[in-house]
């Protein structure tokens, strides 16, 4: 892979689930640095897209990661290549303690970076022996993010990290995502446009199972009319630079 090549190249990916044609030829790339944000209204196929990259849903098409075609690879092999995944529902194991959730995520051949995780989320160290199912939503999100930070991943896929969180926790999680993005490329699915504006470089907009727009995030968000058209948000809810809020 050369510097000019994308880290992820998704080409003509189709997904059918229970007879419904969810993704209808999705194509886009993820840069090898910074944050690429996957945007769109509810139910347009954003989460299915990231699941398709990870092989969590049956798909056709071609997906290349770091120069290697991973379309036929099983999920565990794709993840082991260096993709960390924070799912929309956080995916923490409720019956396992915080420490066990983190221990489970340790990969062979990697020295787990507990110092980084506990530096970002000191709460996790304090609650190490607490069952993850008893954590608050924000704490579970910290655990889900902390889990992927344990290993030296080459890409993080983070699906709606601020969804359903209290405003104070949203700020904390947003800080974490911003800090993570300085070190590792991130594919971010997010409806909180303030967070997107803060961290993302490229935008990929999905609608009805197709990519309908790619380009610079700020160019998109600064064009309120285009943002409303693509994301369905009102002019007033599109955050200007430095403004909070703005859920799509």
């Amino acid at each position, binding site marked *: 892979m050369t510097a000019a090549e994308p880290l992820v190249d998704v080409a003509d990916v189709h997904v059918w689930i229970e007879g419904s044609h969810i993704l209808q030829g999705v194509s886009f790339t993820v840069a090898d640095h910074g944050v690429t944000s996957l945007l769109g209204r509810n139910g347009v196929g954003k989460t299915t897209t990231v699941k398709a990259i990870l092989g969590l849903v049956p798909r056709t098409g071609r997906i290349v990661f770091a120069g290697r075609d991973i379309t036929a690879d099983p999920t565990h092999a794709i993840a082991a290549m260096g993709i960390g995944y924070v799912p929309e529902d956080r995916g923490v194991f409720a*019956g396992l303690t915080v420490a066990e959730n983190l221990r489970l995520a340790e990969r062979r051949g990697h020295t787990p970076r507990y110092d980084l995780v506990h530096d970002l989320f000191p709460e996790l160290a304090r609650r190490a022996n607490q069952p993850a199912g008893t954590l608050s939503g924000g704490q579970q999100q910290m655990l889900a993010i902390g889990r992927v930070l344990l290993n030296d991943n080459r890409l993080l896929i983070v699906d709606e990290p601020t969804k359903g969180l209290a405003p104070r926790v949203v700020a904390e999680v947003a800080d974490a995502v911003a800090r993570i993005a300085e070190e590792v490329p991130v594919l971010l699915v997010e409806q909180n446009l303030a967070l997107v504006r803060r961290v993302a470089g490229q935008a990929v907009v999905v609608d009805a199972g197709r990519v309908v727009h790619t380009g610079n995030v700020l160019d998109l968000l600064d064009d309120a009319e285009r943002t409303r058209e693509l994301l369905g948000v009102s002019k007033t809810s599109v955050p200007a630079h430095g403004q909070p809020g703005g859920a799509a």
Partner: protein
Amino acid sequence: MSTVVLLVVTGLGLGALYFLIASGLSLIFGLMDVLNFAHGAFLTIGAYATWWASVYLPGAGGDGVGFLVAVAFGVAAGTLAATLVELGVIRPLYGRHREQILVTVGLSLAVPALVQAIWGADPLPFPRPELVSGTVTLLGAAIPTDRFLLIAVAALVLAGLLLFGTRTRYGLIVRAGVEDRAMVTALGIDVRKSFTLVFAIGGAAAALAGALGGLYFGVITPFQGTSLLVFAFIVVVIGGTTSTVGCAVASVAVGMVQQFANYYTVAGLGDIAVVIVLAAVLLTRQGGLAKATAGRVA
């Protein structure tokens, strides 16, 4: 009083037998969504392999260390059978539940039929080591010694499963996999290795139940595993498919209910009483006794 003590200990012994079968069944269903009707076949294989070894295997026998060698052989045979079934039959059918049911039902019929073809349908007398051949008097009740052995072995297996679940990486993977298998794979873990391990553990426990069931009943028959499997399924449903401890509690409950109902009503009504308990649990606590407990194996 002595009657109650006798019923309690024999109920615990029967519950211990159920636990050995049901724990593996529950693990397999919980982690892999496989309703393994072939599980009783592993019990049959364990029972007949133990009997065969006690008669024919050099170094093995029907008493003392020789019996332990025979049991070890039986457990190894059950473990091997379970591993081969998982690799050869179940793995190609993951996610295809109807086919899995068909193939495991087929195995549950084929294995006893094969055993019957080789050793006949008549019950075979099972070796009874001297150490567990008598009775022990407890609070006035003369209790067969083998019941205590069953209870002790089941307690050891329960402790082993709990330690496996909390102290080993594979145990963690199994517990997590029961909750969300897809997420485990998304962490970069090949959960299929755990499937094979869980099947092997389940097969070993069932084979051990086969050997100890031989002691309990005094004889072995080709379809012993099939009939015990029915109660193991009931235990799994009552105990919930998410907890080994729930499985143990349900095993004891089923064993006790059977023993007390058989003694205080009419012999044979114990089985009906167990079904009534099952119905009551299903109507009042969907998900079983362990519904509210988080986690699995632990």
